[in-house]
């Protein structure tokens, strides 16, 4: 058995949410209701790395838990690898490896015992369990801690063990809730590499994270969620392109003797001009020829242009613009 063992046919729907709503009362003492998921419909194809981003309380964790069968939708239907999670939870859960945001392990168990427990709990072939346990220990780089009690592991090691638990039964789908939370930079890099390896091995990964730069690096599709609704969803490039209705540029000058922002703001076709005397950003609706003409005009006006670059949309920027309602 290898990393690539449990994969689904590429392109087939691994996760399907059909008009899913989850509604519940506010916890302890507060009056009111939460609609954690509001008529969500989405499909995640097999082999994708799907990132779900949104502020705290957007409904990300609830959505993940509904996919895993840990919470039942108030209405709607969730299927994983074609299996209805509500109707056949154990069968659906056999396809899922899950890592929660507030993860916790059994401190009194040894590393190998922990993995062995979950291998048995996922009803793996008894004869294959010892080999798979050793393989996952190796993959997670925990060989030196094989016989150590979990209570004595560092947080990074515990997180690796948590992911090891999620892949122990070689599921085609990994559902990870904030897997990088609380990790130091080195552990984060290791985690990212591990997720890339799992993706390369054909796993479908459904992930939430507050570290958007990491998501941008590993996700093939993305959804932005707020107040239980999906504001944007699709392949990463499409979502980024959609968000970018006009191109954005940054111009840099050598020296501060020119009133750059004022000059740009007075031009037609330029919007959202901001910056300083030596550097400015702006949105530009024209084509490349119009841009070339603008630069020529700027140079003719006496500005010592030393740099001009097109600013690509980052997930972080898109997310902040979408979630603030700037882009709908």
């Amino acid at each position, binding site marked *: 058995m290898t990393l690539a063992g449990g994969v689904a046919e590429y392109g087939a729907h691994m996760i399907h949410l059909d008009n899913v709503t989850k509604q*519940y009362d506010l916890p302890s003492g507060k009056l009111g209701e939460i609609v954690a998921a509001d008529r969500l419909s989405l499909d995640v194809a097999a082999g994708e790395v799907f990132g779900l981003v949104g502020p705290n309380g957007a409904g990300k964790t609830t959505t993940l838990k509904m996919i895993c069968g840990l919470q039942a939708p108030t209405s709607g239907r969730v299927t994983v690898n074609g299996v209805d999670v509500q109707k056949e939870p154990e069968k659906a859960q056999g396809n899922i490896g*899950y890592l929660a945001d507030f993860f916790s392990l059994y401190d009194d168990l040894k590393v190998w015992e922990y993995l062995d427990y*979950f291998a048995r709990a996922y009803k793996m072939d008894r004869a294959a369990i010892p080999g798979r346990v050793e393989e996952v220990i190796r993959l997670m780089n925990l060989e030196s801690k094989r016989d150590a009690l979990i209570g004595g592991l560092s947080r990074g090691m515990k997180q690796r063990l948590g992911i090891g638990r999620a892949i122990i039964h070689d599921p085609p789908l990994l559902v990870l809730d904030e897997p990088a939370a609380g990790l130091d930079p080195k552990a984060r890099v290791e985690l990212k590499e591990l997720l890339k390896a799992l993706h390369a091995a054909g796993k479908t990964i459904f992930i939430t994270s507050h570290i958007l730069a990491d998501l941008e690096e590993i996700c093939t599709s993305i959804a932005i969620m707020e107040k239980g609704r999906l504001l944007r969803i699709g392949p990463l490039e499409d979502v980024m392109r959609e968000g970018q209705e006009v191109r954005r540029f940054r111009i840099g000058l050598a020296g501060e003797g020119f009133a750059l922002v004022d000059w740009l703001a007075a031009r037609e076709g330029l919007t959202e001009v901001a910056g300083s005397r030596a550097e400015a950003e702006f949105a530009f609706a024209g084509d490349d020829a119009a841009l070339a003409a603008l630069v020529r005009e700027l140079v003719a006006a006496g500005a010592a242009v030393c740099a001009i670059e097109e600013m690509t949309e980052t997930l972080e920027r898109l997310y902040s613009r979408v979630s603030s309602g700037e882009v709908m």
Partner: protein
Amino acid sequence: MSLLFANPELIRNARIQLRPGRVIAAAVICAVVSATAWESITRSDVEVTIYRLTRAGAVLTLIVTLQVLILLIGGGLFCLQSVHREKDLNTFDYQRVTRMTSLELAIGKLFGAPILAYFVVLCLMPVALIAAVEAHISVELLLAAYLVLLLGSITYHALALLISMTIGRGGGGSAIAILIFLAAAGLTYSPEVYSRWTIWSVSPFVAADMLSPEFAGETVTVFGRTFVPVRGLRDFLFGWSVPHLAFLVVIYVAFTAWFLLGIRRNLKKEPALYEIYSPFQAFGLSMFIALLMLAAFPWTTTFESGPMRVGTFEFAWHPTAPHAVEASLLRVGIFVFAALGLALLRNRERVRRRFREFGSRVWGSAVWPAPYLVAAVGVTGGAIVALVNHFRYPASDWDTRLAVYQVIFLAVWLTRDALYLQWMALRRGKRPLLTAILYMGVFYGSVCVTFGALNLYNNARSAAATAILVPTPLFAQGIDFWQEQRGLWIAALFLQGAAALIFAWLQRERLREFEAAEVEAV
């Protein structure tokens, strides 16, 4: 067997609890306790007189009592933590998301959580066996005692697991759960059980009593109370003689099955959607308990002039007037019906899901859980009335209309309170059901104290009037009270019914809010 021995949860618990260091420590402590018990009793200069046991027999009963204590209470406390603690540690979701079924997980916890207690019991077996041989205890008797110990402990462990599943996070719930469990374990060993019913103690502590062969056929006085020894004892169910051991095995197995059913239905569900039993199952369980209650009542002797005698022991059920017996049995039944009512109550999430699944049936839902409650009281009350009527002396004071009235009144009163609790449970807010129960407790406490202080229960007119608010006078009601103020009693019944309808209407209004929210959502 693979459900048990290849159970991952059992193996996990065994690995954590039976580490070599812990096992050695437990074994050493048990060896010390065994040696101390043996030496102190067998070499004592003091003559062993209690229960007229041989010295070895006294060691055996002591060790078995210790084993019951460790397995029943110690193991039970582990079971009480088994789900609750996993929720606190955030590890429970990982178990829920595996392919283990609810039953597999439940069985793993049922036998895995108390595994250290089982090990300690095993460590005490050598001295128990030596003592049994020395005391000439038969193999059959020893096996019977350990069967009771084992099956009884499993039953209580299943109860502890069910409680553990239902309590929320935090220490408060845990403390209450421990109290409930200890109360359940203690109540079943209450000496009161011996003298009130025709069955003997159902506590696993009976295992120790069973190993006192010298008791057979003789009575024993302990703390001023007279008991018949347990060995060879027979229970009387509807007057039929049944071996106590067989009765114990049947009820242990039956209750374990009921508890496991509740756990299996819910363990892997989202806690907000817990429904311990389906309405039909809850009704079935309440009827099973009611049947046990009626079966264990000394019908054939209660109405005789003297108490029932078995050997030299006397069953004493007082009073023996038919209406008083009926009222007493209804009073006992209230606990069963109240538990049924509480089990049937729906929380907001369940109501919301029902609306989504079945559409709005506001009026149908507004009377919930009245249908099942009325049916339970009706069936049980009807059986009580029929049995009392059958067994009573023909010449004794008996008014069938009064008996039927008491059953109807009880059904309406319980329905009123259940509808109030259901209405309150659908409020938004923190623990609405608990708040409702608290309000109800304050209401009953203050009203009963006030009415008692004003001496209102002592004359027919004022007693009937108080029945409008509280059912207290119903159970102290004699035929003379009933005949004197029949109109007022019936008026009280109708007013109780009117109160029930008001709560149904209030619940309907609450349900309309859900309906409106659903329409808005769509």
